[in-house]
C-alpha cells in the first residue's frame, strides 16, 4: 500500500508538527524581551538545515522508506542510522507524552494519575500510527485550520492586553541572550523536523519536498513567533521567563465584556492537537526506523510495543515537572546537536557522493 500525501496536506503536517507541543512553553526565554529577534535569527539559521532535510527527503522520492534508505546509504549503514534515529524519535515521543501529561495535571486534572492521561493519549497515537502518514496528513490539514483560526481569533481578542512597550529596550543585554534564545528554539522545536523526513511518505513530485518542508517550517515559525511575542507583551518579561506555560497564563487574562473569558482552554486544545500530531510523527518515524533496522518492509505490526513503551519511557526520562521544563527550554542538548545537525550533514554528504557516483556509472 503506497502512501500519497498531497502538497498542501504535507505543509499542514510539517507546520503542525513544529507547532506541536512547543506552543505552550516559554520559547526562547533566554532572550527575554528580545525573543522576536531570536526567532528571526533561529529561522535564518535553521533555514539551510531544513533545506538539507528536504533534500534528503526528496532523494528518497518514489521509494518506500526502507528502500530509500538502502539505496542512499547501503544496507548496513542505513540500518544503523535508522536504529539511531528510531531511538531518538522514541525519546522525543516520550518527552511529548510527558509534556502533555504534566500540562494536563498542572492546569486541569490534578487528581488523575499521569498514567491514565497518558494512556488515553497513547492509545490514540497508536491508532494514528497504524493508520499511517496519509491519514495523519489529512487529519492535520483539517486541524491546522482549527489551530490557525483559533490562534488568530485569540490573538485578536487579546490585542487590548498587549503592551508593545514590553519589547523595549531592544537588546539591553547585548546579542548573547538573543543567540541563546535562538539556539533554544532551534533545538526545540525547529530542527526536530528531521523526524518528519522519516515519517511522511511519498509526496506528489520530487520537488514537492522543498515546498512542503520550507513552507511548513516558515509558517510554523511565524506562528510561534507571533504567539511567543504576544505572550511576552501581555505578561511582561518577568512572568514570561518564569512561568511554565506563558501562553496559557496570557490567554487566561483575556476578558471581553466579562463574557469571553477563560480562553486558556483554547490553548489547551491547540496544545493537545499539536502534541498529538508530534507524538504520532515521532512514533511513526521510530516504527519505520526500527522496522528497517530489523529488515521488515511493513512497520505497522511493531507499533504496539513501541508506542506503549512510551508511557514508562516518559516516566523514566522525566521525573518531575521541573525537569520537563528544563528539557523543553534547554540550549541545544548534546544529543540534539548530533541528531539534528551533525548526522544530517554527514548523511547528506554521503548521499550526494553516492548519488553522483551512481549517475557516473
Amino acid at each position, binding site marked *: 500500500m503506497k502512501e500519497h500525501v498531497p502538497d498542501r496536506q504535507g505543509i499542514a503536517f510539517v507546520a503542525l508538527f513544529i507547532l506541536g507541543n512547543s506552543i505552550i512553553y516559554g520559547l526562547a526565554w533566554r532572550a527575554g524581551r528580545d525573543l522576536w529577534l531570536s526567532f528571526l535569527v533561529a529561522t535564518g539559521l535553521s533555514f539551510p538545515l531544513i533545506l538539507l532535510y528536504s533534500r534528503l527527503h526528496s532523494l528518497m522520492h518514489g521509494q518506500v522508506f526502507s528502500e530509500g534508505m538502502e539505496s542512499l546509504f547501503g544496507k548496513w549503514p542505513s540500518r544503523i542510522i535508522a536504529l539511531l534515529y528510531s531511538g531518538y524519535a522514541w525519546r522525543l515521543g516520550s518527552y511529548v507524552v510527558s509534556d502533555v501529561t504534566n500540562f494536563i495535571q*498542572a*492546569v*486541569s*486534572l*490534578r*487528581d*488523575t*494519575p499521569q498514567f*491514565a492521561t497518558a*494512556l*488515553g493519549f497513547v*492509545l490514540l497515537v*497508536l*491508532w494514528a500510527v*497504524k493508520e499511517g502518514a496519509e491519514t495523519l496528513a489529512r487529519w492535520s490539514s483539517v486541524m491546522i485550520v482549527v489551530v490557525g483560526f483559533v490562534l488568530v481569533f485569540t490573538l485578536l481578542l487579546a490585542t487590548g492586553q498587549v503592551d508593545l*512597550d514590553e519589547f*523595549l*529596550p531592544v537588546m*539591553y543585554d547585548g546579542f548573547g541572550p538573543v543567540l541563546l534564545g535562538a539556539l533554544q528554539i532551534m533545538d526545540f522545536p525547529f530542527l526536530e523536523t528531521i523526524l518528519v523526513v522519516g515519517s511522511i511518505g511519498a509526496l506528489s513530485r520530487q520537488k514537492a519536498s522543498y515546498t512542503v518542508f520550507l513552507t511548513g517550517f516558515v509558517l510554523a515559525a511565524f506562528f510561534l513567533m507571533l504567539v511567543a511575542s504576544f505572550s511576552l507583551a501581555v*505578561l*511582561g*518579561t*518577568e*512572568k514570561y521567563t518564569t512561568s511554565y506555560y506563558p501562553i496559557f*497564563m496570557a490567554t*487566561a*487574562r483575556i*476578558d471581553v465584556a*466579562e463574557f469571553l*473569558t477563560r480562553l486558556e482552554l483554547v490553548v489547551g486544545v491547540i496544545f493537545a492537537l499539536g502534541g498529538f500530531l508530534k507524538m504520532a510523527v515521532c512514533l511513526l518515524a521510530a516504527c519505520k526506523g526500527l522496522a528497517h533496522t530489523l529488515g521488515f518492509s511493513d512497520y*505497522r505490526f511493531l507499533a504496539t510495543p513501541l508506542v506503549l513503551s512510551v508511557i514508562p519511557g516518559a516516566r523514566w526520562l522525566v521525573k518531575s515537572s521541573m525537569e520537563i521544563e528544563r528539557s523543553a527550554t534547554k540550549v541545544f542538548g548534546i544529543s540534539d546537536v548530533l541528531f539534528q545537525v551533525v548526522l544530517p550533514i554527514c548523511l547528506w554528504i554521503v548521499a550526494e557522493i553516492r548519488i553522483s557516483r551512481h549517475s557516473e556509472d
Partner: protein
Amino acid sequence: MRRRLIQILMLCLLALFTTGCWDYTELELLDFVIGAGVDADEAGIVLVTEMAKTTGVGQETEFEPVVLSTKARTLSGAAHSLSVPAGMEAFWPHTQVFLVSEEVAREGMMAVLEHILRAWDLRSTMNLFVTKGCTAEEVLKSKPPLAAGVSQHLSSTVRLGDMRAAFVPQQVWQFSGDLAALGIAATLPVVQLVHVTGNLVPVVRGAGVFKKDRLVGWLDAEQTQIFGLLKGEEQRGLFVMDTTVEGETFPITYEFVHNVVEIKPRISDGNVRMQIKLELKLGVVAAEKANFLDRAVTNTVQEQLNRAFARRIRELLWLVQEEYNSDIIGFGQVLMRKEPKVWRSHADDWDTHLRKLAADIEVDCRIIFTGLRAEPFAVRN
C-alpha cells in the same frame, strides 16, 4: 481487523477508566468562594472568606453570602483548612475580590502573593485591595446596602467606571507585574469602612503605596485621581474646582472626557529630567456664571485648570519621590525603555536617583463641551 483491535483496546481503556474517575466532582459539593481577605495574627495568618450559600430549589434559586475564617501559619495552609468549617470543598476559581489588611501589607505581600500566583485555582484577574483602618474580616462582615455581599459590592464598584476617579483598580497580574518589573513600584486600591445611614459600608477610595512588597504609605482620593492620570488610566467621573472668572470665584463641576499622558526622559549634561505631558479633555457639567462661548473665559478657565493640575502633580510627585521614595509612576521603567544606557548607570541606586529626579510638567486642559446649554442659565426677575 485493525479497527476492531482498536475498538477492543478502547473497551479495555474504558474498563480501566471506570474503576475511578479521579477528578470527577459534583458541582453541588463545592462551596464557591467569591471573596477573600487576609488578616495578620500572632499565630500567622487569618483567612476570611465570603462564600456563596444557595437557597431555594429548582428554578428559583438565590445565593446569600456567608463569611468564614480560618487560621494557619501560611495562607496556603489556611486556604486548605477552609473546607473544615465549610463542610464541603472550598472552590476558589470564582474568587473575584481579594483583600489584604493594612497590617499584612506592611509586613510584606510575599506571603500572600506566593500563594496566589502559584496556586492553580486563583485567577490572575482577581481584584486586589488593601484595607485601611480596619481588618479584612470587618470589611467582609459589613453590610453593603444594595449588593448581595461585600465581594459583589466591591467588584461592581470596580466595574463602575464613574467611580474610577477615586482609585486605580489593580488585578493580581498588574500588581505582581509591577512588583516584579524593574523601575516601577506597585499600588493597591484602598477599602475603608464608612458610616452610611447607620451602617458601615465598604468604600473604595485612595491608594496604598508599596515599596518593594511592603506598604509604605497612602494616597488620598484626590492624589489617586492625579496618580491615575499619570498612569494613563482612562478617567471618568466628575470633579469640582473653585474657578475665578471675571473676578468672581465660584465652584465649577467638570467631567473627564479623555486623558492622555506622555512621560519621556530628557538627558542634559548627564542629568535626567522627566518630561510629563498631560492632555485633558474636559466637559463642564455645571457652571453658575461662566459663559464658555466667550473664548477669553474658556482660556482663563483652562489656564487655571492647567495650573491646578500642575500643582497637584508636583505635590504628588514630591510625596511619592521624597516621602515614600517609591517609583509608583514608573519613571525608572520609562528611563529603561527609552534610554537604556542611562538606566544602566542609574539602576543600582535608583532610590537615591529617584529622590533627585526633576520633572517638567506640562498640562494642557481643553474644555470641549458644556452639556446642553451654551450659556449659563440666568434667573431674571
